[in-house]
């Protein structure tokens, strides 16, 4: 017994000594040490050859050039394309994180058909053949009775894909194609009304020396954000000045050389007040105004009526005192603004609020544009230019069979293009109301848009979409509209497809960008162009005949013709030497003049011309005014923030799932609201629970809420966080354009 124990001990000691003389303990220690440094569950990205693909970003209408870095066939990073005429190497926060859309969990991975209740999230995967057959059959059925009850909402105006939709709808026989309007539409109408031009605006901001911005989100994403940032940086280098007129200290206001806070909604009044000073002091560009303008002085119309010209109208009605009272901007300040604006070399006045998603008030655009005319900065260096619409799509009208003719002859459900809104192409803002009022929409096609999120009106929008029996989404992402659709035919993302991207907003030079497949499709998706062509072919008849192309790529190549080569090799095609037409050639109509006023819109004809903008809500019940707070860090369009971008949202904008509203401490004190505490925000359109962010950078009496949050779909990184601003506001039609001009809504904020 005793020996046994001792022997065992001895054995152990021998074993320990022996082990110490082997590499075992040391090697094991080393290996375990390595094991603890490279846990097997941590991904190791495979290495490979670095290669780059040039393409064009399609996440907004900015048209920025991108260079995608790939490792073998994996895309690992998106960067701005160097020397690209739009963004010159820079890229915005969303563009930089586009790969999270490509590879992210919000993708719709294959065609899907709803099986559960709408929005329940139960889907049946179906094949492309079956999906297209189903859509074709559905469309053919509806076509038999009322083709005009098929509506389509899409996002862009130019380029082959929107033209395919236009063609499809025309051949099918429905006038109800709605292209989501933006400030571009308001600018186009301004150019039409004041310059008689059917064109698109360009702003030569890089060369401007004094920018008077009426609430434009120049640094919040206005057109191509990168381009605007670079222009701003150039101003700081070359002594260019930026004046921001806005009731809230937005980023643009903060970076501006001067922030002019005013009573919300009085931007047009201020613009005319400035015009008044300019005219009164005789500071305007007499050469331009006298030779190339009409409607400045009083005139007698062909109908024999006396019309008051812009000059006297402004001189009488917009004296500094009046304007100061209405806007809350001091008369001295108005005087200064006018003097500085006129005194500056190459001044420019800009309208189009925030990111430009809301078309805005046409009066405001015109009042602001009148300032440009007063200094003669039309089609001049550093001024507002006009460009032709892109014209490379020469397909001709599709043949229409009688059904199509009949359908196309019916009036649009949104009221666009009627006598009242003759210059307006489409008014998505009235869509929900129209449907709720009984307009028949049997099928709704949605491409590139996300109306269930972006349309304003809250409950009304929800109700309208519930009424539509059949919704088809072409979205590559499970966005709010796709989530509530009956059929999803997922498009490729912009990193997997070819598409032409012409005419980015605001660029003063004509450019066509090319989006191309950077990687092969990651999901079982199909180019929306191909889906349309295949559906048309499946439908047969005249619809099929309108789509002779084999597929979208063939269509694109054929359409672009000679341009294809350059686009394929460079990624874009630009006319860098473009100069806009000189003054004597610049203006359309018979007069060939810039028209401050004309007979269709002059004081007397439009009673409320250039007055303070309307706002919805009763001031008694809703003492405050809610306005959007837009930010580069929250995408507020159809596509929601990526996970990376979500990381950049400050914690006094979004905390956990709660959204904050900016309130001036003085206002907060008056309503007993404290910093960080919960509050109930209500407007005539809806109500929401929010938290209070006391902020000195907002005018008392106002509430600002971030846009782009409150998404119900997409991925868990964004869904159900915050409140959708669009649910708290309702569209207010502009009296001239009919487009949404709601810049804010009356609101009430109570302690919760």
């Amino acid at each position, binding site marked *: 017994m005793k020996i046994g124990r001792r022997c065992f001990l001895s054995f152990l000691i021998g074993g320990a000594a022996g082990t110490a003389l082997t590499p075992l303990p040391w090697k094991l220690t080393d290996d375990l040490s390595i094991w*603890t*440094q490279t846990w097997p569950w941590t991904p190791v990205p495979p290495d490979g050859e670095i290669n780059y693909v040039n393409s064009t970003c399609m996440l907004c209408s900015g048209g920025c050039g991108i260079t995608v870095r790939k490792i073998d066939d994996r895309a690992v990073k998106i960067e701005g394309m160097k020397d690209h005429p739009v963004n010159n190497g820079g890229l915005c926060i969303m563009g930089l994180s586009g790969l999270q859309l490509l590879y992210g969990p919000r993708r719709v991975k294959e065609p899907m058909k709803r099986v559960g209740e709408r929005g329940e999230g139960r889907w049946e995967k179906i094949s492309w053949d079956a999906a297209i057959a189903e859509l074709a059959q559905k469309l053919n059925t509806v076509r038999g009775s009322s083709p005009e009850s098929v509506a389509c909402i899409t996002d862009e105006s130019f380029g082959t894909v929107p033209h395919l939709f236009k063609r499809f709808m025309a051949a099918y026989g429905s006038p109800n194609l709605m292209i989501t309007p933006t400030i571009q539409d308001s600018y186009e109408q301004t150019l039409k009304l004041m310059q008689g031009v059917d064109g698109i605006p360009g702003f030569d901001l890089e060369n401007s020396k004094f920018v008077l911005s009426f609430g434009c989100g120049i640094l919040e994403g206005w057109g191509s954000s990168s381009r605007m940032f670079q222009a701003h940086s150039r101003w700081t280098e070359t002594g260019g000045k930026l004046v921001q007129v806005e009731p809230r200290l937005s980023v643009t206001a903060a970076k501006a050389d001067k922030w002019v806070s005013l009573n919300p909604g009085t931007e047009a009044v201020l613009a005319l007040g400035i015009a008044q000073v300019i005219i009164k002091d005789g500071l305007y560009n007499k050469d331009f105004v006298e030779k190339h303008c009409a409607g400045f002085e009083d005139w007698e119309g062909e109908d024999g009526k006396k019309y008051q010209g812009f000059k006297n109208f402004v001189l009488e009605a917009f004296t500094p005192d009046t304007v100061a009272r209405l806007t809350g901007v001091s008369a001295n300040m108005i005087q200064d603004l006018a003097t500085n604006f006129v005194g500056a070399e190459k001044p420019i006045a800009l309208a189009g609020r925030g990111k430009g998603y809301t078309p805005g008030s046409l009066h405001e655009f015109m009042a602001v544009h009148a300032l440009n005319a007063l200094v003669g900065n039309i089609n001049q260096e550093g001024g507002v230019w006009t460009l032709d619409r892109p014209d490379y799509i020469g397909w001709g009208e599709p043949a229409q069979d009688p059904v199509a003719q009949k359908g196309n002859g019916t009036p649009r459900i949104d009221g666009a293009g009627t006598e009242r809104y003759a210059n307006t192409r489409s008014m998505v803002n009235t869509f929900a109301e129209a449907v709720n009022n009984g307009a028949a929409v049997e099928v709704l096609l949605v491409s590139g848009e996300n109306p269930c999120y972006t349309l304003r009106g809250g409950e009304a929008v929800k109700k309208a979409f519930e009424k539509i029996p059949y919704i088809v989404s072409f979205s590559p992402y499970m966005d709010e509209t796709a989530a509530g659709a009956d059929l999803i035919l997922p498009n490729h993302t912009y990193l997997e497809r070819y598409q032409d991207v012409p005419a980015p907003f605001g660029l003063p030079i004509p450019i066509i960008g090319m989006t191309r497949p950077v990687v092969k499709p990651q999901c079982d998706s199909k180019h929306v162009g191909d889906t349309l062509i295949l559906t048309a072919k499946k439908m047969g008849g005249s619809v099929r005949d309108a789509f002779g192309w084999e597929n979208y790529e063939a269509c694109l190549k054929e359409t672009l013709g000679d341009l294809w080569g350059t686009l394929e090799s460079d990624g874009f095609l630009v006319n860098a030497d473009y100069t806009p037409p000189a003054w004597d050639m610049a203006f359309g109509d018979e007069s060939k003049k810039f028209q401050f006023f004309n007979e269709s819109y002059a004081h007397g004809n439009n009673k409320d011309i250039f007055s303070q903008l309307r706002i919805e809500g009763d001031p008694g019940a809703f003492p405050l005014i809610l306005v959007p707070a837009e930010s580069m860090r929250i995408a507020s369009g159809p596509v929601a923030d990526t996970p990376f971008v979500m990381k950049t949202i400050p914690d006094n904008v979004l905390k956990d799932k709660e959204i904050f509203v900016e309130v001036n401490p003085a206002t907060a004190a008056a309503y007993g609201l404290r910093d960080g505490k919960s509050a109930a925000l209500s407007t005539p359109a809806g109500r929401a629970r929010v938290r209070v962010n006391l902020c000195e950078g907002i005018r008392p009496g106002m509430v600002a809420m971030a846009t782009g949050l409150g998404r119900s779909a997409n991925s868990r990184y964004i869904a159900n966080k915050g409140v959708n601003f669009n649910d708290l506001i309702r569209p207010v039609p502009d009296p001239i354009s009919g487009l949404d001009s709601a810049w804010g809504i009356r609101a009430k904020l109570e302690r919760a």
Partner: protein
Amino acid sequence: MDSALIPKGVKRAPLWQFTLFIGIVGIVLLWGVYAMVLCWLKGLNQTNMNDAYGFALWIWADLAVIALGGGAFFSGFLKYIIGKDELKNIINYAVLIGFICYSSALLILAIDIGQPLRGWFIFWHANVHSMLTEVAFCLSCYFAVLTIEYIPLILENRQIDKVPFFHNLGHNMHHVMAVFAATGAFLSFFHQGSLGGVTGVLFGRPFGFREGVLIWPTTFFLFTWSAAAVGPCFTLLVTKITEKVTGKKLVKDNVVELLAKISGWMLATYIIAKIIDTWYWAAVTAPESGFSMMDFYTNNPVYGIWILVLEIVIGGVVPALILITDAGRKNKTALITATVLAVIGICVNRWVMVLQVLAVPVLPFESWFMYFPSWQEIATTILPVAYGIILIGLSHRYLPIFPQERELNPIEES
């Protein structure tokens, strides 16, 4: 039932009572162990620490228990080096308390690091310029010393002592204990100091940064000093609590008063040094980086300047005054009050030197950082307390911790 294990000549509570006591404390211990396992398996997201509070409750607990465990090294130093032989009557307990404190500190450190399995890198890949390296080395070495000091106590258990080898080992270890104690004192000086150095060297944190002597900031010396001062206080406090719980007098008053006196003078000198240091820091060091002293104590939503008053006056000056006066030491209530205040003072000091250092905004456009520990942090911080109580219970029951116990509590033979 376990009477064979209980030292001769002393009376112990019935086993059921003892088991119940251990059982109740054991539940708390298990709660702590559960939290600890959670932290190890799921990671430090179980805590409420964050990027602003990389150090929080745990590091405070570490610093505090090590300061409080300072009684072991300082009593050892006094007994073995200075030759205060009376202290042999309390040194065992001081060693036990020290052992508990240091083992707890090491355990908490093992939970507190993000990759516990790589923890040994601190030794292997040591960066000798880092105060934390110094802490790690000295702490683990001194823990080894404490273990060596604790082993002979265990060996004195009646049953273990029967084994000749263990008897001899205990005997021999007693013989060379002075060498170990000296080494322990040497190590303790450095690790107590380097714990002070941990924040003192942070020149990016003006609240904690102190200018230095040689390579060490003043906090280095203040920490050692304060640990030497308050460690014995804590030993006394725990002794008094043990006496209260067991209902027996365990250490003679002259021993207690001697230790209290030394402790008092240490505390008095420490607090003078601390006041001078604070004054110099407020007048010279902090203003050089653009801070006035009040910058560190205003805008704080909870305690403001009062924390400084609590630390220095209530937790320093007051107990020092009590302990250096004969009357104060003789008065039981005053003595206990003084030890409690001194313990609070040192804990507040360690709190301030960890958490306020991180809470104070350094970038002018930042504001105070707030933090409240998660239950997992609290549970793992209470875990050592439960563990300490259990170890004290077991040691007291089965080991002759208090040499004077038999004399002070003679059992009347029936």
